[in-house]
């Protein structure tokens, strides 16, 4: 499926492009200018004015989205801006009244408040935003306090992996989740954390947590099966293969003994593996083109 931009490029529709170009860039300039101006005057603004500013932004965004068509860019942008400003309001509240909250609480409550908006709006990118907030919440959580500090990366990997699997399965049934680029962002997060957890397992001194390897293998098999056979996605397969290459390279470097031995073994194994990965993906790419 072609995006709007791809269609514009293909049709060489300069008039529409210039319209978007000046509108989007002009809006970014203007919004940044206003933000710089507020930042410049931040100290002298009263607290009620600060609250008014952010709350007006939230109300304005949601009122605008209420009036716009569900499929328009305006609706989607205003929903995203409104959801973002909710977090700004919470951070402002914490700053003005010194609530003493932990940073993970901000992201977690932010995610909870945005959840009904995500359910009602039926828009994939707001769900991506929700997942990113959850990532921040869990990443900044005080794992040591909970007693799980050794499993921080592993837990992130499992959370993101499960979200990705659920997203992929649901996208068959729920139309608005079946959005290529949003799925790719979720897949990138899951595969990134999977690779990170495996690096921890390979290089960590006390790692006896082999279960994360089993989880990673299952996730890799699911991703491969789903995006190779059910719905071909070269991007997701590429990052999966890249991640697997890096895991193998790290394992060789870690377990080959001496430095020179690991480099020599690494080169002998990884260069051919890299070649076969490229050849396989290129072959898939050609099938995709056809």
């Amino acid at each position, binding site marked *: 499926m072609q995006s709007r931009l791809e269609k514009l490029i293909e049709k060489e529709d300069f008039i529409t492009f210039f319209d978007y170009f000046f509108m989007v860039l*002009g809006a*970014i300039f203007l919004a*940044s200018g206003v933000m710089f101006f507020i930042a410049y005057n931040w100290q002298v603004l009263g607290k009620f004015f600060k609250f008014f500013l952010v709350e007006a932004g939230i109300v304005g965004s949601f009122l605008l989205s209420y009036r716009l068509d569900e499929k328009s860019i305006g609706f989607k942008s205003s929903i995203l801006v409104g959801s973002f400003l909710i977090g700004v309001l919470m951070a402002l509240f914490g700053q003005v009244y010194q609530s003493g909250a932990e940073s993970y609480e901000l992201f977690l409550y932010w995610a909870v408040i945005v959840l009904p908006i995500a359910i009602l709006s039926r828009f994939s990118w707001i769900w991506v935003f929700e997942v990113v907030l959850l990532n921040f919440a869990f990443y900044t959580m005080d794992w040591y306090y909970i007693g799980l500090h050794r499993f921080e990366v592993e837990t992130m990997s499992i959370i993101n992996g499960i979200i990705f699997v659920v997203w992929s399965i649901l996208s068959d049934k729920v139309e608005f989740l079946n959005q290529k680029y949003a799925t790719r962002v979720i897949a990138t997060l899951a595969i990134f954390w999977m690779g990170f957890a495996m690096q921890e397992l390979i290089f960590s001194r006390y790692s006896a947590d082999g279960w994360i390897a089993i989880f990673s293998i299952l996730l890799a098999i699911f991703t491969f099966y789903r995006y190779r056979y059910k719905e071909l996605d070269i991007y997701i397969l590429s990052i999966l293969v890249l991640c697997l290459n890096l895991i193998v390279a790290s394992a060789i470097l870690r377990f080959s003994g001496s430095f020179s031995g690991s*480099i020599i073994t690494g*080169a002998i194994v*990884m*260069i051919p593996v890299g070649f076969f990965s490229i050849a396989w993906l290129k072959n898939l790419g050609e099938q995709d083109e056809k």
Partner: protein
Amino acid sequence: MKSKITIHIFTAILSFIGALLMIGFSTILLSDMINLSHKSTYLLLGILYYILSIVMLREKSRELFITYFATIFQISSVILLLISSDLNILFFHVNRYYHVIVTLSLISITQAIFYLLVDSRPHKILASFFTFFALDGLMVTLGLGQLVGVLFVAVLLFSIKKHIEIAYGVTIAILLSLFFSLNHDFYFLRRGFRFEYNFTYIAVVLMSVLVGYFIANLLKEKNLLANNRYTIISFIVTVFGVVLFYFQPTIAITMFLILFWFYHKSLALMIASFLMFLFFIYKFYYMLDSTLLEKSLIMMTSGILLFGFRYFLKKGFKNA
């Protein structure tokens, strides 16, 4: 088309990893076999890999196997040339410029020759990127940093017809160079297109004229204006360009690149330029050479002017 770009990026990353392993592998083997110093080994291998990659790519029937190894050798030769010449002293003894100048000139010249000798598109793009990235560092080291922008924009505009690979390479070099120059304090990259020294005004005017020329030509070629006032448009764009290039050169260049790559139909470079545009706006907030109030006024004025352009172009366009 899109899967091709993904595969090219994937190939480049894996080739880079392969190049690092290849360098380690061959250096260990060679320094064990013949009793050479590390620097001589690096240089010898760099030359060997350079020649090998050219020989491989000049074969008419190229298998994937050959192109993969040629990419590894091409990247390896550049890295080996860099480490053989002690370029790392740059970060510790900034007075020894001649090392930097010789190395960067060598990389730039050898990769330019590479570009001329081979006819594989991805390798030409890679060679062009290395040539211009090294040239950028070289010009900044020589104190001509302000003219890099002018040179790059001129190369972009005049190379495009027959050598689109150069345009790809130059664009990637511009974006990476600006990204690094804003994030690190490495001496030879410590500037964006900031025009702080001698040629500031000349560079700003030249770049704006080039951009004005490009936009007027584009409108003329596509026959977009109802009233044919291309000279006035070119003049207005040049004047706006002078202001924008003076106050926010990094932002201005990315805006130009978005437009340029829409015209030349590369979605990937358009998106890359747009992401860099957002990144440079974020970085602009932290620049210490002007107050937040001044920066806010510059941004708001630019925004209002862009909306103004949109309004007037909508009126002036045919079929709008």
